[in-house]
């Protein structure tokens, strides 16, 4: 909703979307700090910013309970924050520092916070789909009422696990919501060029999973659709959501994305989901200053995480040998 001329929105749940706005700002600033830190070589491995896609993470995860589960991708900072993870241990993980969520062993592509049901980013495209199906399978076996949300990109729909995992969810009637973040690109390639057929939703439907599509840059649409779908999912039926969005930065923080025209990117910046939400809230009567304050608070929070992470030590070297396995533990010298 890039235009500024909407009629005043009256029935918008202001509390709800103020919170979503705040969440999106947090995600944005977390990643901007991370990109800056990557430039300073504080972040070590590759990071994949989700700048421009924040409404999907915020819109979907806002509907989840702490006990619900998500599985994410290489582009997972937004999902992780929105599910309730703390920025400082996240940033420490990106910096490879002590107190990082994975003790510095994982980095951005393997970030996880099991305490809030975030079961991991993944360095292998689409691998999380089968794992998510299994997590939902376990919930069903144990008779719980939690749900699983599995995020993946439009490029992931060309890998076998997409078919296998969705079929599995359909066959076993599992409480899982698949969320395809369709940002039009898989690394440097326009996904459409390498994708036959009508796309993710059609594939899901053919696999027996009803699919919905939303404007992924409109946090209200994402939120409302996800809420509805998750109600169904919680009753034990898998569902599929396609969120059309755009990756405003490069594939990684060091990718200038020269493979797409500048005008395209410029135009897409006019559809920034955070600004869309700000306009909506303003139109609904929220004072601009209040939103600016939220925005600034988010910026400050993430700056602080950056600084604090930077000030943290490396993990103890001995950790390299910890948590490999119990039986045949390498610390027992059996190698």
């Amino acid at each position, binding site marked *: 909703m890039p235009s500024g001329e909407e009629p005043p929105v009256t029935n918008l749940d202001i509390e709800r979307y103020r919170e979503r706005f705040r969440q999106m700002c947090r995600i944005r600033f977390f990643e901007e700090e991370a990109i800056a830190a990557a430039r300073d070589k504080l972040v070590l491995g590759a990071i994949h910013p989700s700048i421009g896609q924040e409404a999907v993470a915020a819109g979907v995860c806002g509907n989840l309970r702490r006990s619900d589960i998500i599985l994410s991708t290489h582009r997972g900072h937004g999902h992780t924050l929105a599910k309730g993870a703390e920025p400082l241990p996240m940033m420490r993980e990106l910096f490879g520092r002590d107190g990082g969520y994975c003790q510095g062993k994982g980095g951005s592509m393997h970030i996880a916070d*099991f305490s809030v049901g975030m079961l991991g980013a993944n360095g292998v495209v689409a691998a999380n789909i089968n794992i998510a199906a299994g997590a939902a399978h376990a919930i069903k076996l144990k008779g719980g009422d939690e749900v699983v949300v599995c995020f993946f990109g439009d490029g992931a729909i060309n890998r076998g696990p997409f078919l296998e995992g969705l079929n*599995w969810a359909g066959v076993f009637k599992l409480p899982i919501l698949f969320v395809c973040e369709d940002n039009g690109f898989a690394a440097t390639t326009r996904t459409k060029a390498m994708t036959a057929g009508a796309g993710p939703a059609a594939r899901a439907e053919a696999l027996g999973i009803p699919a919905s599509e939303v404007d992924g840059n409109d946090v209200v649409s994402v939120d409302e659709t996800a809420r509805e779908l998750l109600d169904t999912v919680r009753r034990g039926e898998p569902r599929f959501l396609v969120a059309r969005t755009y990756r405003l930065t490069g594939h990684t923080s060091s990718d200038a994305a020269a493979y797409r025209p500048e005008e395209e990117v410029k135009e897409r910046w006019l559809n920034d989901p955070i600004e869309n939400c700000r306009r909506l809230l303003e139109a609904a009567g929220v004072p601009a200053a209040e939103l600016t304050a939220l925005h600034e608070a988010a910026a400050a929070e993430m700056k602080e995480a950056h600084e604090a992470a930077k000030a943290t030590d490396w993990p103890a070297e001995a950790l390299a040998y910890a*948590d490999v396995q119990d039986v045949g533990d390498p610390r027992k010298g059996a190698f």
Partner: protein
Amino acid sequence: MAVMTYLEAGKLALAEEMRRDPLVWAVGEDLGRGGVFGQYKGLAEEFGHDRISDAPISESCIMGAAVGAAMMGTRPVVEMRFSDFALCAVDELVNQAAKARYMFGGQTRVPLVVREPIGIWRSSAAQHSQSLEAWYAHIPGLVVVVPSTPADNRALLKAAIRCDDPVVYMEHKNLWGLEGEVPDSDAGVGEVAELGKARVLREGADVTIVSWSAAVHSALAAAGSLAGRGLEAEVVDLRTLWPWDRETVMASVRKTGRLLVVQESVSVAGFGAEVAASVAETLHAALKAPVRRLGAPRIPISYAPPLEDRVRVTEEMIVAAAQEMAAVAA
């Protein structure tokens, strides 16, 4: 003690563990009707189809879903049918199951057991006969188990199911029908094995034969023949390849001064290389003869018996190798 087959012993182990722990479940193609070799026959009747679960022909998802289900606190036993088909699920096993606990800094564990029947069996040819245990021994995070007897198939499978690490559990297809004594459920000993302990199946002073899985039986037969020729072979069944029982092997070789590794799998870059290299590194000065490996040539496995037989390590080959090794010192 009861006499039962290797297959029945495996089934008993699974049933006992499923009775003990409601979070144990099994999943794989055709399990509801007993599985491809009948290893699950009757279990769906006792435990229901949710816990003895059929699966689509989706090896990636069987393995990947098991990873997710294990991280959520259940204990899946995954059936791959033939170990060869597990090659459709290597990302799930090696990049996900084996690494999750470590990558996530110890936040989770992946207590799953992957049953992968291995080995040469009845003209099954190149895509249904492989033994790739060496691969999994090379991967940090995995435990590798290779039982050779009915008693071990019960005791090791129970241990594998109780293990909090991902375990690659390789039963040998040619052993399904092998009968042997298995301790009773209330015996209190021998029921659950300690993973990582080899077993000396036969003592001897002249040469140590280290083996695992079906090859153990050729090694034992060869030891019998060797005894008739005045050579006492000590036969060590490794039982698990990761961890492998260096102490038992080293103690034996320290005594005999000779190491012969006998494996069914391809010798080149096989697990026998690890054992032989480790012994050579550790006990060089104590060796009366060079370490030696017997294994399959680096060729795929054929269908026709005369060709299939060309990859087999036979009793005669073991006897001959042991005799040659003894002759070095003589």
